[in-house]
């Protein structure tokens, strides 16, 4: 008996160690190793001669390039401020108030994330551009108002569209897990609402809050889709990379700029590491879920706020739908459904659309399993601390890697038939090269490209679940995987589903990494949107975008339905929407 107990325990730990190492290997091969050849390029010229730090020095000495760095910082700081603020209020309304029509607002909360970036730009141009509805005062019926879209303003609006849903995801998962007992205690001590907010709510979600700051900062610091189309002459680092890599085939300088882009990510990691020292979980086995009470003033303010946000987002979407129906904007405003027949324009009819849907389904399934399991191993166990820290660090990197750079790195790594061993005349077959030219590489690139937000969202949730569960299981000699399946997964189910739908919607719209990787036989719709727009078929591009948005919305509805059923049945306490 005694022997058996020891055996079990050591088997448990052995299994854990193996799993941690396995995940470490996977993460290294998919994130770090593909980046190495590209980063080595930053120390060499385009003929592959080693030139040390010359590229870095050249970059810093060029005044127009350093201006881009400052511009990127400005964009990132402004975007972060507004995105987190909006994301927080919206998330708070969803989780902590009796917001009217909550289900509706919840369903549409990520709506701006469903719209392909190019379509957001089309929409913004139709509304705020020189001929835009608002700029021209709805065809001159009311006084027009020019916000000077092209440049800083346009970038900020576009980036907030893209970033606030990301902050929202993290903050919803942070605000979802809370303990009613704390609020009850505060109440009996006659604490004011402000005091409750400052002493319970904020400290409870500090990881979520901090993470959403980092995510928004890094995303807006590295994004190139928005600045490319509405940035005008306002240069940022990411458009510099585009100019170097795509405009001039200067991979070395592109790689150099990418390294500068990694700086905030590494800083974020270091700060986070310090924060983690004094962490404490908020949810113990005894917690009671928070039940918001009616408060007419708060509820109606929240209702107005959320409505305004949605009106703006839906306004942009409507102008895209309009764009897909109008013949020649703004000169011939007759309507037609012609543009939804993709056969006579660029692309191959509906084939790219279906390819994209399947790619997104695969990404959602495999990505969610991989990311959640990785976060679980990193967050919940004690063995192999250094390796777990490394996995954590690697997992935070992808967000700082522009899709363009990821795509190119993946070509360099996955298109390599074999590796040569240094100093020996010996070649090792690269098994990963089998993935190149298949759907697999697209799915993998998507999983990695969007890994960080999912990983952080999973960690935020896992952090809030008391380690007590694992400790109790251990002392009860229950193997960890049983605890994982019986407690951790059900408790985290809303987050897991959220990650799945996040992966899905992002894979539906992503362009930057995929544009380099998609095989000839697997055209995808986000790329064909770019190509259609390029060929002048703005209307068809808008039509395809509309289709993509509707698909994501449909998936979101399935998600709503599933998560409601699941949370009812697993009878756990998450999801205040039920109250």
């Amino acid at each position, binding site marked *: 008996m005694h022997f058996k107990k020891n055996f079990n325990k050591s088997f448990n730990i052995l299994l854990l160690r193996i799993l941690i190492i396995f995940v470490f290997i996977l993460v290294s091969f998919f994130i770090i190793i593909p980046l190495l050849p590209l980063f080595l390029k930053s120390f060499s010229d385009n003929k592959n001669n080693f030139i040390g730090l010359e590229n870095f020095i050249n970059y810093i000495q060029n005044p127009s390039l350093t201006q881009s760095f400052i511009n990127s910082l400005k964009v990132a700081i402004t975007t972060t401020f507004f995105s987190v603020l909006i994301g927080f209020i919206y998330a708070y309304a969803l989780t902590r108030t009796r917001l009217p029509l909550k289900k509706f607002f919840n369903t549409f909360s990520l709506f701006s994330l469903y719209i392909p970036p190019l379509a957001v730009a089309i929409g913004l141009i139709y509304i705020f551009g020189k*001929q835009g509805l608002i700029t021209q005062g709805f065809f001159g019926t009311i006084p027009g108002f020019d916000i000077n879209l092209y440049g800083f303003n346009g970038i900020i609006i576009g980036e907030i569209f893209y970033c606030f849903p990301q902050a929202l995801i993290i903050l919803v998962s942070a605000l979802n897990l809370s303990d009613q007992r704390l609020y009850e205690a505060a109440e009996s001590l006659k604490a004011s609402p402000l005091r409750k907010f400052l002493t319970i709510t904020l400290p409870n979600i500090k990881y979520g809050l901090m993470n959403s700051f980092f995510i928004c900062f890094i995303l807006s610091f590295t994004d190139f889709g928005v600045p490319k189309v509405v940035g005008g002459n306002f240069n940022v680092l990411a458009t510099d990379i585009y100019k170097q890599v*795509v405009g*001039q085939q200067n991979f070395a300088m592109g790689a150099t700029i990418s390294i500068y882009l990694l700086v905030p990510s590494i800083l974020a990691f270091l700060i986070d590491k310090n924060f983690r020292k004094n962490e404490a979980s908020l949810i113990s086995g005894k917690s009671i879920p928070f039940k918001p009470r009616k408060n007419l003033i708060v509820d109606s303010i929240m209702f107005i706020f959320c409505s305004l946000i949605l009106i703006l987002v839906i306004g942009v979407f409507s102008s895209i739908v309009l764009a897909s129906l109008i013949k020649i904007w703004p000169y011939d405003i007759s309507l037609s459904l012609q543009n939804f027949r993709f056969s006579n*324009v660029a692309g191959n009819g509906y084939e790219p659309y279906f390819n994209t849907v*399947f790619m997104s389904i695969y990404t959602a399934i495999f990505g969610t399993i991989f990311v959640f399991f990785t976060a679980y191993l990193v967050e919940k166990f004690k063995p192999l601390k250094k390796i777990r820290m490394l996995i954590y660090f690697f997992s935070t990197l992808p967000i700082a890697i522009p899709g363009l750079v990821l795509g*190119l790195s993946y070509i360099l790594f996955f298109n390599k038939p074999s590796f040569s061993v240094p100093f020996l005349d010996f070649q090792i077959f690269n098994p990963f090269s089998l993935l190149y030219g298949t759907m697999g590489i697209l799915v993998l690139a998507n999983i990695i490209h969007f890994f960080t937000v999912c990983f952080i969202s999973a960690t935020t949730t896992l952090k809030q679940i008391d380690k007590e569960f694992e400790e109790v299981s251990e002392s009860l000699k229950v193997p960890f995987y049983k605890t994982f399946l019986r407690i951790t997964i059900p408790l985290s189910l809303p987050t897991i589903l959220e990650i799945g739908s996040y992966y899905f919607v992002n894979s539906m719209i992503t362009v930057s990494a995929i544009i380099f990787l998609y095989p000839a036989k697997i055209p995808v719709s986000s790329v064909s949107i770019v190509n259609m727009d390029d060929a002048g078929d703005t209307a068809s591009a808008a039509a395809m975008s509309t289709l993509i948005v509707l698909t994501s919305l449909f998936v979101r509805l399935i998600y709503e339905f599933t998560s409601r059923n699941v949370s009812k049945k697993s009878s756990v306490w998450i999801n205040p929407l039920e109250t």
Partner: protein
Amino acid sequence: MKKLFSFVMGAAVIGTALAPSANAWWWGKKGSEKASITVYTALEDDQIPNYLKSFERDYPNIEVNIVRDSTGIVTAKLLAEAENPQADVVWGLAASSLLVANDRGLIQGYAPKGLSNVKPSFRDPAKKPSWVGIDSWISAFCVNKIEAQKNGLSIPKSWADLTKPEYKGHIVMSNPASSGTGYLSVASRLQNLPSEEDGWNYLDALHKNIAQYMHSGSKPCKAAGKGEYPIGVSFGYRAVKQVNMGQPIEAVFPKEGSGWDVEANALIKKDKIKPAAKTFLDWAISPEVSREYAKSFAITAVETDVPLPKGFPSNPEKQLAKNDLQWAAVNRERILAEWAKRYDGKSAPK
């Protein structure tokens, strides 16, 4: 718990079942009976099916897989795949890009059948040319007639016109650092004024009027078509196409001559060069497909009897300004550095 499992499994099963030929799809359709070649191209998406018709008719046993993207993306992809090239053939990519690829040793010289029909300035002069042109694309202005009238602007007729103060803030052009079309305009100006110094002086004056440098060759014309800005410095095919789409655009070919580049084909160097790749290159300069090119391009590498497409100047060859492709390629890095120093990274003029 069981429910959860069945949910996850269900999702996985549905995912797999939804893909009818999931396996072939996942792994690519390898090992089909037909010979198949992969073709990288930057030709316009809507033209490709028309061009390919005669190939599909004459060579039903060769399957052509097209990867189409903008010039910059295709070139970057070619260079990144250098170690294990995926493309067999490049079709209709800027000669300036092919010069870069050739410089990195990615191209196998090949003299396609019918090479003698190709005008000498449209090919690499080598016996086995690394690139063989099919058509030429030339810079042009897209001027929105409605917006020009609204703003009281006359239609500019020449490069010199563009520097007039009346156009301040009304002109957009492609950024030469991110677009080949932008670069050919800049390179052409530098080669066609008495000295390069004069060229830069001209660009200084032009810069004062530019509202935006855009990151694509076609975008300035698109912006003009939507009335975002009255004048877009773009390229001929695009301008003519938008006119034909019914947009209020006038295609202006500048008096001093247009900058130009050649869209060309090349054979990719790899261990096993497929015979089908050479067949494709032979076909790609055949008179029949050249006639198709001539329907969209005023200037083709192989002379055809097709009447000039609507909207182009009557003697298109004369429209070409002096241009040394080799010079433009060799000096590219220097010119772009100078250009960026002078004009890039400044805040947008109002």
